[in-house]
């Protein structure tokens, strides 16, 4: 029997028993739905981790010289923390030697940051991420100014009380007022707003736009690091990967020399890259994927057993039909194909429903929780294949029983 005829036959059989078919494919539907949803969440989180969180905080082809890793996803145990705490700080006096050691084709920025209270005349005090920066900070973080301007070289070198704010902070501190040229206060000192940055968006309910950026030498930097002359990081961005590796080697050697480390000693500073920050995420992701596949797989196993049972019942119910078909010239393989196609069609429909519901679930998760979910196209293909595969596997035994039926006995059945 041609394949299309077999599918048409299967569809009409399924259509003839809608309710039974629906319950039959429920297991596969639920399994595939969760598969799609979990994969979407893992994908969404992965994209967020790789592009937004780590990419925006550190940047592409960028590393940061830090006392200890800034992004610690997952658990860092006690002894590691203690070792981190014993490390020497990165100092203002480190910056010039670091900059001097850079190869051609790099740009740099130094900065310190913390959450501080920011006040204005138009609103109550708000908490914001305040960053004191020097060097090519805006270029390195790929953060443009949408309105107003960046600091001039002069404002930077004199540490004037000027500030660029993010659009979220603008909304909160200056509701309905143009903030350019107006004042806000940090640590009791006034700063003049000279620009508003582009919108960066948010993830996990965390806005990237609730920030204020001041020249490093402005007084606010003393509020960001309690110890004098200490900075958070020097960020270095290279034109490409080979320059990046070269720069990292130079800075590693420089910092080891400045900290007087012996050849056998471990680094007592961190050169943080997006990759090193992502390492832990990748480890978590592996577990998430395993869990995300194992749980729906259970649903699929249950679904497969249900389909197998229903198909066995179908073979028993339609024994006479099988006898008639054989009498009319159906070969064993025609009967086998008929039932395999039927169970594969059934579970593929289940999988398609599951994919649709999985999309819906992923959308719902994005809408009501801060977790970003994005549907991976490959997961749709996998969903369909898994559905059809489940049907074929669970159909093999019932179909082969049908195919082996003796036509005489089958015809005699009431």
């Amino acid at each position, binding site marked *: 029997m041609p394949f299309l005829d077999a599918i048409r036959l299967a569809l009409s*059989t399924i259509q003839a028993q809608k309710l039974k078919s629906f319950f039959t494919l429920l297991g596969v539907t639920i399994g595939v739905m969760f598969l799609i949803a979990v994969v979407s969440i893992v994908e969404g989180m992965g994209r967020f981790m790789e592009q937004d969180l780590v990419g925006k905080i550190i940047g592409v082809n960028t590393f940061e010289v830090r006392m200890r890793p800034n992004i610690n996803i997952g658990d860092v145990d006690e002894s590691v923390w203690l070792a981190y705490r014993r490390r020497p700080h990165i100092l203002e006096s480190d910056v010039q030697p670091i900059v001097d050691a850079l190869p051609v084709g790099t740009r740099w920025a130094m900065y310190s940051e913390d959450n501080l209270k920011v006040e204005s005349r138009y609103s109550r005090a708000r908490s914001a991420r305040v960053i004191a920066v020097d060097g090519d900070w805006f270029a390195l973080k790929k953060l443009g100014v949408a309105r107003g301007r960046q600091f001039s070289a002069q404002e930077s070198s004199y540490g004037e009380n000027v500030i660029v704010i993010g659009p979220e902070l603008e909304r909160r501190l200056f509701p309905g007022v143009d903030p350019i040229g107006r004042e806000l206060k940090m640590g009791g000192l006034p700063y003049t707003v000279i620009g508003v940055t582009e919108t960066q968006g948010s993830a996990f309910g965390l806005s990237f736009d609730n920030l204020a950026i001041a020249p490093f030498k402005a007084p606010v930097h003393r509020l960001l690091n309690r110890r004098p002359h200490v900075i958070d990081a020097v960020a270095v961005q290279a034109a490409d990967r080979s320059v990046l590796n070269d720069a990292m080697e130079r800075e590693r050697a420089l910092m080891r020399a400045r900290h007087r480390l012996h050849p056998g000693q471990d680094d007592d500073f961190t050169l943080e890259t997006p990759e090193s920050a992502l390492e832990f995420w990748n480890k978590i992701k592996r577990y998430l994927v395993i869990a995300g596949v194992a749980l729906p797989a259970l649903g699929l196993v249950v679904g497969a057993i249900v389909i197998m049972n229903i198909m066995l019942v179908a073979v028993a119910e339609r024994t006479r039909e099988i006898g*008639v078909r054989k*009498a*009319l010239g159906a*070969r*064993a393989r*025609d009967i086998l194909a008929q039932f395999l196609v039927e169970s594969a069609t059934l579970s593929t429909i289940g999988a398609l429903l599951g994919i649709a519901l999985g999309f819906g679930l992923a959308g719902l998760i994005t809408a009501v929780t801060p977790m970003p979910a994005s549907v991976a196209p490959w997961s749709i293909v996998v969903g369909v294949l898994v559905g059809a595969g489940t049907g074929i596997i669970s159909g093999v035994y019932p179909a082969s029983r049908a195919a082996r039926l003796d036509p005489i006995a089958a*015809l005699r059945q009431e």
Partner: protein
Amino acid sequence: MSAATDAPAGEIAISATGERKAVTASAGTSPSSEWIIVTRGIARNYDMGGEIVRALRGVDIAVMRNEYVAIMGPSGSGKSTLMNMIGCLDTPNEGEYWLNGQLVSTMTDDELARVRNKEIGFVFQTFNLLPRATALANVELPLVYAGVPAAERRERAMEALTRVQLGERVHHKPNELSGGQRQRVAIARALVNRPSILLADEPTGNLDSTTSEEIMRVFEELAQRGQTVIMVTHEPDIASHARRVVVLRDGVVSSDERKEQFVARIAQGGKTH
């Protein structure tokens, strides 16, 4: 249909009686082409839980093209087993079965399926139509397994249904048809692939007497147009529609006679069972 079919099939059968023995005797050789069915000493045993039941004990039957034969016998006589053999649903333990020049008795299951599809048209007592399929789809079924393209399938099925006067009801499902109409759909299905033999198993068993007569007229007409018909029945009335009656008893042929002889014997109180 050849010129030979112009003579009444019954006459041919009787004139060939002398030849029958020769046809059935020479084992291993293909019978000449006018013989559609030749069995040579076919036997079939069943193992019923250790006990061997000998359903057929050496049956020799030869049927020419265009004959209309009834096979009779009481239950347990082996007539169902013989019908299964002739219908290629089963193969004998011993002996040879030649159908339309092909040695069926040694065929594999797939080859048997092909022979059933091409050479045999089944008509069952209980019609055996697929309940969810329309009359048209039921009649198309043998063509589906013959690999006939959809458009041609439809056309040939329509034609077969028109031949049994059901051209108006092709889209009805079996439960929307009367018993007689259902059996006519089954006959259309049996004929649609132009089989060598039409094999009917108690075709009127589930029908009232008026409808039975109507169905028997369909068979009569088919036989007159040259279709070879083999009909298994236990009713002498029905058997007497055929031109030749073979009676089985205890797994062997107990009588093989012209309809006229059979009817005369029955009239004198002769046993058919």
